[in-house]
């Protein structure tokens, strides 16, 4: 069976379902050719990494440590931002400032709509260019945070008379926000551990490939800003748990609101924070601070999240949000019991306590049952049974290679950070431990959720490294800052105004450590430091390489390299979309597989039938059915759908593996799911169960619309002298059906490298021509009718009276 594989595909697109999917995609086949940008970003990344641990060592030696320290951290953060920003620019430098992939095109299009028509127009936008007969209510079915952010920046810049095109704002939004992400990671890690770890974490997240994969310049997608919102919300949450102040909690709610408006992943927050509170309760770490923080957060956050039209009433209806409500109730009950304990006698309290506990246990039990039967089962069901979900490459489990590829050294060292956190546990480290465990689980289940794992891996690795550097980098005697054990300890250290020690607090460890620290010797220390720095250097180099090679291809523009290193740009997609834009009617309807829907709408500005917002499975199945039926049946479907043009992607000429023939089996499967009578997947295989396009292939495949459109006149083309005409380079086979004729379609456009082929659907003829000979009838009667009526004979006469003829047998043999 065709093994679904996801060759480093980071964005939502159909899987290649054919056995050739392992073949390289041209877009990804560049090896080790660093452009000028690579070098510069490389230096920046490498340069930012080593100075990170410095504050721990320097801070003690200078007369005014606070000033130096803040200057240094400011510089490091700025450099981290710069390094992160510049290493995301490979695609812009190599190609141009262009929106990548598929989903970003939709985001760009709606941002453009927002920028040109205003906010309310955008909220009420009914897009009649998508899902052709149905249309799509865009305002109510998107997370508007991304578009509003970009639109706002555009508006501000234009108000300041800095004229920037909205496209450039969109292209550079994600790299800019990556800097904000590193700052919020710094803040969060500083709350969890100390400033040194925070700076390390900021540098890590600036360049780690797991995050870059979704935030290169041009990848204008929700995740680009959502990770910032996620980290910032967590920072504010930790802050509010620590302080118990309503102010911080309200900030947290606002940040949560931003997150809800930006990405569906907000569900992760609304489950993780209640989990944190729940575990704190279990650990008997309940305090008034937790009570204030969570009660405020839950109520205000709930109300705010319901303001997003797309979310609406989900937070009080769906199972994903029930855990938060349950924990809210539990916390109230717990607080109430605490209150009663002060008021009641022990005996009374015990009975009440048992009553309360049993009630709460019952409620939790019921909610768990509810959750399992509504939420989880549905997801499992969806995963197994709906081919459209299975067909998306990012919904696959994760191999260890992907972990290592995206995180490199961090994936091996972050468990150490987790270990340190749990060993020195406090309220907020409980949070980070839960964050790490849940995120690593989700990342294991689905490749795309690597994104939520990346920030916590950066933080914990930074803690591990900073721990090591703290002990091995500085001189022995200059150890004034012991590892921070208590959260409030660090609070007053950062507050310059708060110069006195709190009453009753003893600065312990200092004398002890000075005594024990004198061992080990400078040699070992410097060796350890050097090796650790080497590891970090390798990390920086790896990150740059991965970014440059795997994550910086726009996939709208492909590039291939010759043997001497010169580059060919294959700009077929844009060529074809531009042709559509220029040469077709403004309201022409273009049918294609759903992967290309957003691009057609965004670049060609034409109406599409299905697109990457895969909300209507039956519609997609109908398109799949049209593609996989023969021409006559497909024509009927296309007539009912008012299709004017059909667009297919064909990679056989240049060996592009992500083309429609390789995705074809998914079309068949999805069509079969809805129309099991007409389409059967087994018809498209050879009797041996292979999917072949050559002569041995199944006749159903060789005559289906997709095959005919892909290979129309390909049989006349000889690519190479060593191969026969009609040799498909992607499948490495000579095609089986070279004599392809169309009746209802005609070729309208084929791009330079045949990558995109567009066919026009002919209108039915005015007068239908018959494909058989007209029936011949005798027009002239054999004999003229003569009336026998005369004035004399007035008898009646039967006109065509049957006459018996006897004795003569009409036999056909004689004829």
């Amino acid at each position: 069976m065709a093994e679904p594989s996801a060759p480093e595909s980071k964005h939502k697109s159909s899987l290649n379902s054919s056995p050739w999917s392992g073949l390289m995609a041209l877009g990804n086949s560049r090896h080790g050719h660093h452009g000028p940008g690579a070098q510069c970003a490389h230096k920046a990344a490498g340069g930012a990494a080593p100075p990170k641990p410095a504050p721990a060592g320097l801070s003690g030696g200078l007369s005014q440590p606070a000033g130096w320290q803040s200057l240094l951290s400011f510089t490091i953060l700025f450099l981290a931002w710069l390094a992160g920003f510049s290493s995301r620019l490979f695609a812009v430098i190599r190609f141009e400032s262009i929106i990548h992939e598929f989903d970003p095109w939709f985001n760009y299009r709606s941002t453009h709509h927002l920028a040109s028509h205003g906010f309310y127009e955008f909220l009420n936008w009914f897009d009649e260019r998508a899902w052709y007969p149905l249309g799509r209510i865009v305002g109510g079915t998107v997370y508007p945070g991304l578009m509003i952010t970009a639109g706002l920046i555009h508006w501000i810049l234009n108000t300041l008379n800095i004229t920037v095109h909205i496209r450039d704002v969109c292209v550079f939004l994600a790299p800019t926000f990556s800097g904000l992400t590193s700052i919020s990671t710094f803040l969060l890690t500083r709350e969890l551990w100390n400033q040194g770890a925070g700076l390390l974490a900021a540098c890590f997240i600036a360049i780690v490939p797991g995050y870059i994969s979704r935030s290169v310049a041009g990848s204008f997608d929700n995740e680009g800003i959502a990770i910032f919102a996620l980290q910032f919300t967590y920072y504010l949450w930790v802050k509010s748990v620590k302080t118990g102040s309503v102010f911080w909690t309200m900030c947290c709610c606002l940040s949560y609101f931003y997150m809800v408006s930006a990405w569906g992943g907000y569900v992760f927050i609304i489950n993780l924070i209640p989990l944190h509170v729940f575990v704190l309760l279990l650990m008997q770490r309940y305090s008034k601070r937790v009570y204030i923080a969570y009660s405020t957060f839950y109520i205000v956050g709930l109300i705010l999240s319901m303001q997003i039209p797309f979310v609406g009433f989900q937070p009080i209806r769906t199972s994903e949000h029930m855990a938060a409500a349950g924990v809210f109730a539990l916390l109230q009950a717990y607080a109430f019991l605490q209150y009663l304990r002060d008021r009641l006698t022990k005996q009374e309290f015990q009975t009440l306590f048992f009553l309360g506990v049993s009630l709460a246990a019952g409620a939790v039990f019921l909610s768990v049952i509810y959750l399992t039967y509504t939420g989880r089962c549905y997801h499992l069901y969806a995963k197994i049974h709906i081919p459209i979900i299975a067909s998306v490459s990012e919904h696959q489990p994760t191999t260890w290679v992907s972990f290592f590829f995206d995180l490199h050294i961090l994936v091996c060292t972050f468990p150490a950070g987790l270990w340190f956190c749990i060993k020195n546990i406090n309220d907020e480290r409980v949070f980070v431990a839960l964050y790490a465990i849940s995120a690593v689980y989700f990342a294991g289940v689905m490749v795309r959720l690597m994104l939520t794992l990346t920030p916590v891996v950066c933080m914990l690795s930074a803690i591990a490294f900073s721990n090591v550097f703290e002990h091995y980098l500085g001189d022995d005697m200059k150890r004034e800052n012991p590892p921070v054990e208590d959260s409030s300890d660090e609070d007053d250290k950062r507050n310059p105004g708060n110069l006195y020690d709190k009453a009753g607090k003893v600065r312990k460890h200092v004398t002890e450590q000075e005594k024990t620290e004198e061992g080990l010797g400078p040699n070992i220390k410097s060796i350890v430091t050097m090796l650790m720095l080497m590891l970090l250097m390798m990390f920086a180099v790896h990150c740059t390489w991965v970014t440059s090679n795997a994550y910086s291809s726009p996939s709208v523009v492909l590039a291939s390299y010759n043997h001497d290193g010169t580059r060919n740009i294959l700009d077929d997609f844009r060529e074809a979309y531009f042709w559509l834009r220029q040469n077709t009617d403004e309201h022409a309807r273009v049918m294609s597989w759903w992967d290309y829907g957003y691009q057609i709408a965004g670049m060609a500005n034409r109406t599409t039938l299905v697109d990457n917002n895969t909300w209507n499975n039956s519609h997609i199945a109908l398109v799949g059915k049209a593609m996989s039926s023969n021409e006559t049946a497909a024509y009927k479907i296309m007539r009912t759908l008012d299709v004017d043009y059909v667009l297919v992607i064909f990679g056989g000429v240049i060996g592009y593996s992500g083309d429609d023939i390789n995705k074809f089996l998914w079309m068949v499967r999805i069509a079969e799911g809805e129309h099991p009578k007409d389409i059967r997947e087994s018809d498209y295989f050879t009797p041996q169960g292979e999917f072949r396009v050559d002569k041995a292939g199944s006749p159903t495949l060789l005559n289906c619309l997709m095959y005919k459109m892909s290979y129309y006149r390909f049989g006349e083309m000889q690519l190479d002298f060593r191969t026969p005409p009609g040799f498909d380079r992607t499948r490495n086979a000579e095609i089986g059906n070279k004599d392809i004729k169309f009746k209802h379609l005609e070729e309208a456009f084929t791009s330079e490298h045949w990558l995109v082929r567009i066919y026009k659907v002919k209108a039915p003829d005015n007068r239908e021509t018959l494909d058989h000979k007209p029936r011949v009838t005798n027009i002239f009667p054999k004999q003229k009718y003569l009336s026998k009526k005369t004035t004399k004979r007035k008898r009646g006469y039967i006109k065509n009276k049957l006459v018996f003829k006897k004795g003569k047998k009409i036999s056909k043999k004689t004829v």
Partner: protein
Amino acid sequence: MGARGAPSRRRQAGRRLRYLPTGSFPFLLLLLLLCIQLGGGQKKKENLLAEKVEQLMEWSSRRSIFRMNGDKFRKFIKAPPRNYSMIVMFTALQPQRQCSVCRQANEEYQILANSWRYSSAFCNKLFFSMVDYDEGTDVFQQLNMNSAPTFMHFPPKGRPKRADTFDLQRIGFAAEQLAKWIADRTDVHIRVFRPPNYSGTIALALLVSLVGGLLYLRRNNLEFIYNKTGWAMVSLCIVFAMTSGQMWNHIRGPPYAHKNPHNGQVSYIHGSSQAQFVAESHIILVLNAAITMGMVLLNEAATSKGDVGKRRIICLVGLGLVVFFFSFLLSIFRSKYHGYPYR
């Protein structure tokens, strides 16, 4: 069709008889003889059929699936006098074939056959059998079959058609799907009865009772719940399991390792970056754990109070663990990810 065809043939024969010239009387005699012989053949055929069915029934009373070799296959499945449908699983169950799919398919097939064997509708119209590649290689060659497992239905009359081969790749080999397919081909409806799987429940009960017993035994001293090291260990285990791709193994079910059939070399590392073996993920798990332990030891060496020499050794061991195992990990990654330029 056959019923209509037979009389017409007889009529033709009669007509031909009538027009036979008188001189060819010996011919007539020969024909008569032939007819008698044919009738005898019919009888013999019936005997043979009854014999075969009896033999099959006897086998199936002993076990629900009987194994076939080349001779038996030809006798019971290929040879024409049959009035029963036969479902055959072509498989390779020998351990050296390393066909994990075959084993799973076999289990499902057993379930199906048992459901049929012990159902009230059991009759001699449908039998289940299997051909192992190592026992009936000739059968595989004869049917031009090059993949296992394959399920085929041999109808009572005629050759198996295209739909008589079960489409394993598309529908999978769940017993229910097989039953549906059989119902489609033979009109025999089998209600699949799965022996309830208690192993999960038992394991859970065991775990719960173990934990409960432990808590009960230690009820006076519940300190260990507050033991941070224990909790840290548990969370690290989860993390290592996930980062080494155990979830991928769980969902995809790869083989433990790959043995090259030509030279017998066992490879533990999958050559492609898209897949992995179970053994490989275990190796990675150990490597990750070793690196983490190295980091912890480095920290331990610096913070613990004790003999300086001992701490130096701990420090060096920790450093060695980190550096050595990380280079090892990197080299494995390099071997899998072709074109990775750094060591």
